[in-house]
């Protein structure tokens, strides 16, 4: 199989994914007026569906740890962030609930989702079992939403202060980088199921290992590096947005004339 054939043929149907997306879109249209923000929702659903039906999913299902990592990042960081940004500014996301409003919980949710799902038994199970896989996808979106709520809650007063948000994002980046560094340099396989693909169901093993040159060792390195570098750049983008928010808020008032010393 060539790369081109692979990219054309390996699309899979995912009923649950489409049902969820359709439901989300319907609920959004039912609850809110149509504004430009719906574009964020459409983007979120597009990323979500593409993650689940595109050849990326075929690769993640037993072939490439790095493809799984890319899915992981998209579902944990990109989709929930876009979902939150799609909400109209008046929507309140439970500022009274201690569990959701606490930044510490949010941080643990975002970072924990990374660490937990890369524990060896869970990482293996998410590939071998459909149920665990579905559970993983749902939990990533949920935990990602709890994480991003601190930064992207529609209501300004439900968000963290910009300085707090910078620390929140920076420390999350450090925590994920450490895991990324561990995975990149680990002398043992983090997710052994990828190291020995059980059966070459799609007949693409040769394509991956010979044409693309991705050996299991290199695959794990790419996975770790994805978590270490590009993921941190996502946090960095959010940090820049927070700085802009800090410098812009509140708008400058009229100048006050100086008084004598």
């Amino acid at each position, binding site marked *: 199989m060539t790369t081109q054939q692979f990219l054309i043929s390996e699309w899979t149907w995912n009923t649950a994914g489409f049902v969820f997306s359709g439901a989300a879109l319907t609920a959004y249209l039912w609850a809110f007026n149509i504004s430009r923000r719906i574009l964020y929702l459409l983007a979120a659903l597009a990323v979500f569906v593409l993650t689940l039906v595109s050849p990326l999913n075929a690769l993640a299902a037993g072939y490439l740890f790095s493809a799984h990592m890319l899915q992981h990042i998209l579902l944990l960081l990109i989709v929930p962030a876009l979902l939150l940004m799609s909400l109209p500014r008046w929507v309140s996301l439970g500022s009274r609930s201690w569990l959701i409003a606490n930044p510490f919980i949010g941080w643990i949710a975002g970072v924990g989702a990374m660490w937990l799902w890369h524990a060896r038994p869970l990482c293996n199970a998410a590939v071998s079992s459909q149920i665990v896989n579905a559970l993983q996808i749902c939990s990533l979106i949920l935990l990602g939403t709890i994480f991003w709520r601190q930064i992207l809650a529609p209501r300004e007063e439900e968000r963290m*202060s*910009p*300085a*707090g948000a*910078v620390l929140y994002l*920076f420390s999350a*980046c450090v925590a994920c*980088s*450490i895991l990324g*560094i*561990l995975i*990149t*340099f*680990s*002398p*043992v396989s983090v997710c052994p199921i990828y190291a020995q693909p059980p059966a070459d169901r799609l007949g693409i093993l040769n394509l991956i290992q010979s044409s693309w040159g991705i050996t299991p060792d*290199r695959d794990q*390195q*790419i996975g770790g*590096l994805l978590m*270490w*570098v*590009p993921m*941190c*750049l996502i946090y*960095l983008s959010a*940090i*820049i947005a927070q*700085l*802009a928010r*800090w*410098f812009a*808020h*509140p*708008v*400058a*008032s*009229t*100048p*006050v*004339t*100086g*008084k004598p*010393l």
Partner: protein
Amino acid sequence: MNGNTSITATVAHLLTPAERQHWKLAWLSTVDHKRIGILYMLTGLVFFVIAGIEALLIRLQLMVPNNTLLAPDTYNWMFTMHGTTMIFLVAMPVLFGIMNYILPLQIGARDMAFPRLNALGVWLVPFGGILLHFSFLAGGPPAVGWFAYTPLSETPYSSQLGVDYWAISLLVLGIGSVSAGINFIVTVLTQRAPGMTLRRLPLFSWMVFMNAFLVILALPLLNASLVMLLIDRLLGGRFFLPFGGGSAIMWQHIFWAFGHPEVYIVAIPAFAILSEVIPVFSRKPIFGHEFVAASTVVIVFLSLLVWAHHMFTVGLGHTIDLFFVAASVLIAVPTGVKLFNWSATMVGGRVRFTTPMLFCVAALLQFLIGGLTGISHAVAPLDWQTKNSYYLVAHFHNIFVGLIVFAILGAIYYWFPKMSGRMMSERLGKWSFWLMTIGFNLTFMIQHVLGLAGMPRRTFTYPDLPGWAWMNMVSTIGAFFMAAGSIVFVWDLVTSLFRGKAAGDNPWNAWTLEWATTSPPPHENFDALPPIHSRRPLWDYANPDRPDPVVPAGGAIDNFRPEKNKAGVMTFIISELGFFGVLILAYLFYNATPQSGPGWQRLDIFKTTIFSVCLFASSFTIWRSEVGLRTNNLGKMKAWLIATIVLGGIFIVGQGLEYWSLYQSGVSVGLDLFATTFFTLTGFHGLHVSFGLLALLVVLGVALVSNPKNGHLPALGAVGYYWHFVDVVWVFVFSIVYLWPLIR
């Protein structure tokens, strides 16, 4: 005699009348940030002369092909000592000195947050410097380059004491730098004048603030790698020795995880100086203040992320190279933002080319060149060709000399009037500037060509290949131009101190608060402050009819002022994360696959669990003690405090028993990698617990003696934070060392 009196008189006019009787003591025992700043700079100047002479010896050796002026070993000593000294004993102390002097003045503070800690930091510099240079008397200095790659720096290949002195000295300097970083952060957070909100910080102060975070995040990584190297060398550990199972590459990773941020630790203060001087002499506020401020945050962030681009030639593999090429190239964006903003500040301004401005504009241009060659190094294939050549030497000297030294010289010409009350000579200043600039470009521009022509660095001589001889000759001549420029500069410094014309409070018509007081400032810095509504309070004061737009001061962050002691300890804890992080990662790396000999099986998990419970319980007792203090129940507070000390003591004794039984069964640090990593990780944790116990005893003593009124004993809360931190570290260490093998 005459000379001595005039020195006394000059040094004395920086002192109060009461101190003039014993002016030497007044300088030695000072805790005033201004004198500490000057001490930092003078120490740096002394080492600048030493490292400068070393540079001249290197250039003399390379002046002609096949030269025999320096023996190969001596040459290796020279470039190692030159690099180490220039970075750790010149650039950092001088910049810390400038920041120490200016930062409190610029934010309208009386002093740094922790004046005694500040004094400790400054005296650690000569201490570390003397330790490093003592190696000359103890069998020869290190000859391993400033990054001391293992295994070359390990005992089998460098058996003399030079590397030990190098590592211990850098450890001392690293501790001093972290203490200074903590002090800068807490000073900005807690000592700002009323109205000086975080958003109104002038760019210099903002960048010093950001840079201090980089210091406390990056320096502990170096400290961790140094203790690992010392454990290898002095206790027979196996961290970085390949034939003992260790990884020599790990040293490079840790060193560059520190080393790349280190470049920015000395570059961001230079950016800060440029951001201050260029607007003043362009008579315009800086273009895009927010962009410059935010790009500094981005630089701090990215600089921690990209160290592997120093290791493209190591053979990490294409995959790793690829990611770090991309991330490294990204750094060009925030630095480019800065360059454009400085340039845009000058456009349309009434630019006055005084000496400080000349140095800063030159720094900007040299940094542009150094930055562009830097990008060329971020591209791995090009890096493979040029890494170990003079092209790299030319690149980083463009940063370290072209940007940083020039910015420092600009800063000294700019702030000397404030520090001494006298102007430096513009005529000598221009001589110094042109000698330095011409000399610098003669020395280093040609080295780009030499490097591309294939001349390797760190070789004591070279064959007479076509073109190499004359290019090296040019380079050496340039070095002597720079030496002449330095001599003119020092001459200018000394003569201006005695005979410079009076400066007045604000000779440059600048806008920030350091110019709102006398030159030199009085002991307490200010009698009164102008109102602060923007980033240029003196402009607003001088131009009441057209002030700067008010910088809004709403929100909790703008007026964030934590309690000083707690902020200090929290900052310290952040700095400890890197240190323990490295030790934990090293443990995980070396124990990921079980070692051949018995490893964790030798540990007594049952007993240690009991002792750990004691330690965890002590977190609860110290919390009860704080509650006792808050509710003004001093008896309760003392009782719970004593309980905490007892529980901590039990833990330490328990750890001692574990060590003793291991020692009895023949397990020592050097036995295998498990032993090396185990003793290092738990040993440093135990050391921290011991220090925590000492601090708790001190707090208990204070409480017993003084009976704090109204629940006021901030030290308890501060030590409490530290104690919780030590417990949390043990949660990780205990899980990884004792529990992880059970579930694996």
